[in-house]
């Protein structure tokens, strides 16, 4: 059933410089959350400066005209607040949770860094080091991270989704202060930002203060178009990653539609049927039934451009990769070849609805969910009837979309082959992979 609009009394307005503002009061506790969504992510990068969106996220905490280095978080924490941020392929979001009487300070801090961020060589060198450390942690020494990176590079030939959000290490070493300054001018203008404020505040005060503090920031230039083309995939693709591990692992990426496509909601249900909850098909069949995997995960995240429907299998030690792979394909084929039983469709819809409601309980959750909805679908109101649109999906829709998406020619597979880390000599890598293939491993 649709959400009651009276529970989401959003006040919205747009400043002359293009900044979009959304206010959502909730005075039940003396706290607020604010999100600043910038429509910039790794999608807006180019080879040579991959990772700059994420690196820039770090740079945003290093001082501005009014507040010097380290002052952003020092002032915020001293006022009873905390901040964080994240960068995705499509967007960068900054948020603060804080005691409600810190709102004037938070608005001043946020508007000041949008107006006049300080970018200097010292802070760039420092954040470059921190981000490289983050890359080592999340990608170079993490099996999931390195496989995810390999999958993007395998599945996309031309689209900017090809490179990792954290960027290639060589590009992190290369990004210059001039690159950062140009990036800031282009993408951190008010007309590329939407602010969501939720919690305990006076609406009139928030409206006036936001207008006063942000109103004088000039609008930015027209943004360069993103080169979103991607050739049609004509057959299954495969990539091998060799790394010391206890057991093999597999990561699958099936070419899937963008978040605003009609079938994206069907894929949300497919994701739930396959991998959400102990009763989902892959957990039941691959983890419990056949005991092939320690873990089976399914993920379909909405993206601005066509993305990937992902399945990740971490195999039990001793399980042969082809056996796990065949078992997965059997489950995916079944979903495309047989109608989904009514109770499974009901289960998926109920889980999706409950997750939606749970995401709206906190001030941070509301600001984030509604802001993200607006960024992805262009209008936060689409959140309100989202449940009705899930309800309208039929078993036939699920079968049709599963049949289409899980076709072999849309498939990309990354296989983790346990073994010593290849040295820089490419011959070692080639020999190791040849040995794997000769031993019967799939290509």
């Amino acid at each position, binding site marked *: 059933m649709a959400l009651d609009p009276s529970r989401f009394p959003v006040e919205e307005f747009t400043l002359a410089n293009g900044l979009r503002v959304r206010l959502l009061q909730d005075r*039940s506790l003396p706290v607020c959350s604010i999100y600043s969504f910038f429509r910039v992510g790794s999608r807006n990068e180019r080879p040579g400066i991959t990772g700059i969106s994420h690196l820039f996220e770090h740079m945003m905490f290093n001082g501005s005209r009014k507040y010097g280095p380290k002052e952003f978080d020092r002032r915020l*924490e001293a006022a009873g607040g905390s901040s964080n941020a994240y960068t995705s392929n499509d967007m960068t979001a900054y948020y603060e949770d804080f005691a409600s009487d810190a709102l004037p300070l938070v608005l001043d801090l946020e508007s000041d860094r949008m107006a006049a961020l300080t970018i200097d060589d010292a802070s760039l060198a420092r954040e470059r080091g921190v981000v490289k*450390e983050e890359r080592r942690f999340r990608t170079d*020494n993490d*099996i999931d991270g390195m496989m995810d990176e390999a999958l993007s590079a395998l599945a996309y030939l031309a689209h900017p989704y090809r490179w990792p959000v954290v960027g290639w290490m060589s590009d992190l070493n290369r990004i210059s202060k001039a690159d950062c300054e140009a990036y800031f001018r282009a993408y951190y203008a008010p007309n590329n930002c939407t602010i969501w404020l939720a919690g305990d505040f006076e609406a009139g005060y928030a409206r006036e203060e936001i207008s006063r503090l942000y109103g004088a920031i000039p609008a930015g230039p027209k943004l360069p178009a993103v080169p979103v083309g991607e050739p049609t995939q004509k057959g299954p693709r495969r990539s091998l990653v060799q790394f010391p591990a206890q057991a093999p692992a597999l990561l699958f990426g099936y070419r899937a539609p963008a978040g605003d496509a009609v079938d994206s909601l069907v894929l949300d249900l497919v994701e739930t049927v396959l991998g959400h909850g*102990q009763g989902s098909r892959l957990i039941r069949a691959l983890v419990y039934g056949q*005991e092939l995997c320690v873990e089976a995960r399914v993920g379909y995240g909405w993206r601005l451009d066509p993305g990937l429907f992902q399945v990740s299998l971490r195999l039990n030690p001793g399980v042969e990769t082809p056996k796990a792979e065949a078992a997965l394909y059997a489950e995916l084929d079944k979903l495309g070849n047989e109608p989904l039983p009514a109770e499974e469709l009901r*289960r998926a819809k109920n889980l999706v609805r*409950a997750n939606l409601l749970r995401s709206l309980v906190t001030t941070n959750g509301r600001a984030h969910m509604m802001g993200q909805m607006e960024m992805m679908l262009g209008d936060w109101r689409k959140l309100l009837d989202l449940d009705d649109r899930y309800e309208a999906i039929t078993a036939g829709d699920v079968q049709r979309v599963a049949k289409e998406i899980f076709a072999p020619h849309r498939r990309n597979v990354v296989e983790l082959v346990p073994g010593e880390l290849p040295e820089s000599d490419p011959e070692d890598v080639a020999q190791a992979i040849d040995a794997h293939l000769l031993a019967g491993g799939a290509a």
Partner: protein
Amino acid sequence: MSALADVSLPPLRIEKEPGGLTLAAVEKRGVPLFHARISFPAGASTDPAGKTGLASFTSDLLRRGTLRRGADAVDALIEGMGAHLSVEANMDECALGLTVPYELAAAALDALLEVALEPSFPEEEVERARRQTISALQSDLDEPGTVASRALAVLGYGEGHPYGHPLAGRTRDVEGFTRDDAAQFHAARYRADGALLSLCGDASRDDLIALARARLGQDRFASFARAKSTTGPLSLAPAAYAIAARRGLTALVIHKADSTQAQLRIVAPGLSRKADNWAPAFVANAALGGGFTSLLVDAIRVERGLSYSVSSRLSMNRHAGLSLFSSFTKNETLRQLIDVALEKMRGYAASGPSADALAKSQRYLAGLFPFSLQGLEALAEQVSDSVLDGTGLESIEHYRSIITSVTAEQARAAARELSPAREGAQIVIVGDAAVAQKALEGICPVEVRPIEEFA
């Protein structure tokens, strides 16, 4: 900036039932949801000797079949309502919880009680769970952070301490688990006295209490609700939780081949959740390594760019706790990270927080505290913990004034007494052994062990 007022809890009611079960009902309006959570004194600290991991193993089996239905049917029942059943065993308790749209409250509560109180432990599920747990323990060796956590429990508390073993157990113990082990553990620990059922949702507290009593009053649950159990004490004598004193500084290196980065932990005894001086400890820790502008984050991440993540924290169980430093860095800067961490923590132990740092930490903790009461699950857990830990609701309602009234002297004492780097501290490094040994040269004695020993 004005003083932060204490936070009022939503209307709630706490009742002690005749059989010893505690009921807590919290009225939470706004979104039409219902959350139920039941906690039992069935944590890993009660793992029998030679059976580490049994508490966790038993909790994993609860949903794998009940007296009324098999595992698939249990999942279908719960997930058909749109709920995810969480089953989490920690050192002190096992808690089961689920959240559903409010109109399903009665059915959801029945399902929660069925899983918690009527598990059947089918033989084939026990066999499978044993195989799966062993595979998962082996797979965990690929996660350096997880290996560090497993080692810290043993090192920090000491072998033989009730908390001195990994939560998920050791492979050699898990290999011997039987159906009887799980069934006997359940019979002994999943009992009314010491258990707490909390309900939180879009209804009045009286309606929530009435709902709990109605569901527990069904014949199927009557024996649990009415009868006190007599099987063993709820917890051990306080002396059993004392952590043996250590001298000097020592290091354990856990060798993981081909690591380009090393995980670093430094551990010393900390505080229990019942400790009277929790507020000075929270404030002192926030200034040391809790917030983003804390001393350690500033020195290691902001000033030197040595790591993406650095923190100090108090890992608190009900009867004892640890004080922890945690970070990682590339192999080339491991020695520098160790040196900076030890120097900063020792300096802080001697001086305590500055006046500015003290005020900032107090405001930081007090300002953010209400966020921990926003979600239904978080609210139910806070109320449940305050009752079971014995800290009382006033530790929630007066959190802000308690934190802001911590004096400089109290914070200094906490900084000194709880420093992760004080006398007797232990260093744990997960990474390449040769790199770690070189980085530790001249600092302290080093023991090296292969990562496989930590499965």
